[in-house]
């Protein structure tokens, strides 16, 4: 610190205050970004695996705020309170992203380890920081790779503990939520189809393959390959679309106008 110039010293100080990191980390980040503070923040926050040396005491305080009175976990009430504090709707998809960071085993509950571990990974140790990070979490959904991870994670998270498959209603709800972000035109038809024809739980394979389907096959099904080893449910969906004349020329125009 003594070797640094005054301006740099200030920046290190500022960095440490805002991020709550150590001097060593601050120096590294600033040096990497050529002593541009904003850029240093970007660098710091994009490395989610960096455990910030947040005050564990403060994290415990935070945990205790939301913890259930009878069980050593954060349950529904606690989560509702948290959402309130964060000024976020409990149904907001950002909560899924948060759960993903926490590696939460199942929805609507956080274990102490999951909560604290998650916050540490995100470098959060206060409500203010927590609120600030929400925008960042939301932005992660735009990243192709992250979205896939979050999407696949959502299956385990949304299903009942001990079950292998995801209940249909839950799956439909999740899909509607997730594909609102991704903007897949066929999502409504997919959900209708499932309710009309399938009426059973969704397997993991079907879940993950649907994302591939939405990503690679265009909504007019022009590049759908019947030999493409798609799960049979997706094959049936295609049949359903063709049978009901849903795939038509105006569909193509509509889609191409949007894009």
């Amino acid at each position, binding site marked *: 610190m003594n070797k640094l110039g005054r301006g740099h010293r200030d920046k290190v100080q500022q960095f440490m205050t805002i991020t709550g990191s150590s001097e060593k980390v601050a120096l590294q980040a600033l040096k990497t970004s050529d002593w541009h503070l904003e850029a240093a923040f970007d660098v710091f926050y994009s490395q989610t695996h960096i455990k910030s040396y947040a005050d564990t005491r403060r994290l415990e305080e935070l945990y205790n705020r939301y913890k259930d009175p009878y069980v050593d976990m954060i349950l529904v009430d606690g989560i509702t309170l948290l959402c309130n504090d964060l000024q976020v709707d409990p149904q907001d998809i950002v909560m899924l992203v948060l759960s993903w960071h926490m590696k939460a085993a199942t929805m609507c509950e956080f274990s102490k380890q999951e909560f604290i571990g998650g916050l540490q990974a995100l470098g959060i140790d206060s409500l203010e920081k927590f609120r600030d990070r929400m925008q960042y979490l939301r932005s992660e959904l735009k990243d192709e790779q992250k979205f896939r991870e979050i999407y696949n994670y959502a299956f385990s998270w949304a299903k009942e503990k001990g079950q292998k498959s995801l209940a249909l209603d839950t799956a439909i709800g999740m899909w509607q939520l997730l594909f609102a972000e991704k903007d897949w035109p066929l999502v409504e038809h997919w959900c209708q189809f499932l309710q009309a024809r399938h009426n059973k739980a969704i397997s993991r394979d079907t879940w993950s393959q649907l994302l591939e389907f939405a990503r690679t096959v265009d909504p007019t099904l022009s590049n759908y390959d019947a030999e493409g080893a798609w799960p*049979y449910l997706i094959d049936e969906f295609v049949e359903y679309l063709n049978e009901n004349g849903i795939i038509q020329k105006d569909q193509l125009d509509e889609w191409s106008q949007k894009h």
Partner: protein
Amino acid sequence: MSAQKKRNFQIEAFKHKVVVDPKYAEKTWKILEHAIHEIYNHNASGLSFEELYRSSALLRFYLYIFRNAYNMVLHKFGEKLYSGLVSTMTLHLKDIAKSIESAQGGSFLEELNRKWADHNKALQMIRDILMYMDRTFIPSTQKIPVHELGLNLWRDNIIHSGKIQSRLRDTLLELVQRERTGEVINRGLMRNVIKMLMDLGSSVYQEDFETPFLEVSADFYRGESQQFIDCCDCGDYLKKAERRLNEEIERVSHYLDAKSEVKITSVVEKEMIESHMHRLVHMENSGLVNMIVDDKYEDLGRMYSLFRRVPNGLSLIRDVMTSHIRDKGKQLVTDPERLKDPVDFVQRLLDEKDKHDKIINLAFNNDKTFQNALNSSFEYFINLNPRSPEFISLFVDDKLRKGLKGVSEEDIEIVLDKAMMLFRFLQEKDVFEKYYKQHLAKRLLSGKTASDDAERSLIVKLKTECGYQFTSKLEGMFTDMRTSQDTMLGFYRSMGSEIADYPTLVVHVLTTGSWPTQSSPTCNLPPEILGICDKFRTYYLGTHTGRRLSWQANMGSADLKATFGKGQKHELNVSTYQMCILMLFNNADQLSYKEIEQATEIPALDLKRSLQSLACVKGKNVLRKEPMSKEVAEDDAFFVNDKFTSKLYKVKVGTIVAQKESEPEKQETRQRVEEDRKPQIEAAIVRIMKSRRVLDHNNIVAEVTKQLQSRFLPNPVVIKKRIESLIEREFLERDKTDRKLYRYLA
């Protein structure tokens, strides 16, 4: 030639010395020239050389000439000799040409023939005389040897002379034409003239005869075939074509070059067969299909051997035959009338196969490609009907059941082999297995299997075809039957006196799993029976601890002694269900349907069927029903039919016979088959993935299909579902980068 002259020459020859003198050459040549003239003139005089030869005078002359020739060559006058030969011969030939040209009509050929013969003889003599020249002068100067020269000169001056060439060709062709229209011609003369052309060289033969011959023949046959096809039916046309073909072959053997045979036969084949192939095959009322239907072996055989000669001839026959068989087969298997009697249905299939086998054997030369086409057609239409496996099993059941009285062992084998042949065509062999098991069970349990050996024989055949798995359970059924016999013996031996007063009991103990799955339906056995049944149960469980026995009332039968109202006594053979029903009437005169149902607890469908057999069938109506309708309704009332009569003492009422399934039963069986297929498909997938480790989707489907094809044809959609199920159960996973690839998880 006078003797005097000869002597003169002779003397001179001995006296003269050999001198190299141009005048000598001229003189010698003149002698030779004269000799050649003489040779030709001998021809003209009509004296045969043989006659003259015999006179030694000529022989001496001949030798003298020879020596002169020798000398000329020796003294290098070969050139003069040779050119002189050419001009002399040419001169003579021109004369000969004139005489031939002047021949009238028919004698043209004869004259030509005669002159040719003479020329050959003359040529031979001249060649002999000029032999030394042939051997020395000609090879060294590469001139044409004498014999060949003679032929060429003949060719150029006679055959290719303007007035002879075309006349010769036209004459020959005209004779052929006349022969074709039925006239008798002088074949010997033809042969000689043709041989002459051949001797003059193959190009002469071809140019001056063969090529125009083929052209004219093509026109002829084109016209004739058009005529025939417009007025003949297929069989007659083929006879005519065959006749013409044979005629041409015979013609060639008699007076043409053997090499012409293949050329003229292809002309006939093309014009008479190839051009009209399609029209013949598809001819209405007489074409291929009609011939097949009417078993016209001779006509079919003729068609086969003729069409064999032309490109695509046989494939045309084969294709038309195939589509006919397929159509016929399709009709057969979809005709609702035919489907009413399964045994008849199968018999018809066998008859069709036999019929066509015979045709291929007798008329189509046992051609393998035809045999294959027949087989694939059968495979195609047999599988069009989803009930084929069931029906074939019923057919076999019928044969093994009663059809064996008075039939020899060999005949049984033949019928079973034929059934096996149909079995091989089935794609859904596992469906057959299911039905076969059911039918076999019924046969065994009702004691209706006529020949144990025949049953065994069929099982062996099935095992050979499908492997051990297929038949292991069936064999289990036979084992159970045998074991049960032993059990019964043991039972009676050990219980002997205790059970003497009870009704006689015969029990078949069936191992669950070997026999077709049945649920154990409810049935209250009559008290008269319960005693002995319990005794048996005790005995059996005493010797076989840890087992569970449940009575299968739906599969048993009973013999009852019955006395009716007027005292008539009969022995009734009934099913177990029917026994339960009838025994009730020992304690009641009248019973309603509901009462019977309550007392026996027999399932409704079976109860109705049993009652129907007891009350509504003429000659077997030991019960009376009110109202007298054919169907059993829930508010019917039943009475013993005191007026029951039968000519026989023993009356058979209900038998457990294998029957064509009703619609709901069929659905059930089909469902069970589908359920059974799932684990088989999964096992196949796991086997394949275990050895391959990584494999893409299409290949898995192909491999699975291949592995299971001896049992059934798996549906690709079902395979896909099984793969997904295996993914869920973590036997497999999708590859992370290529979603079409699957990985085996150890």
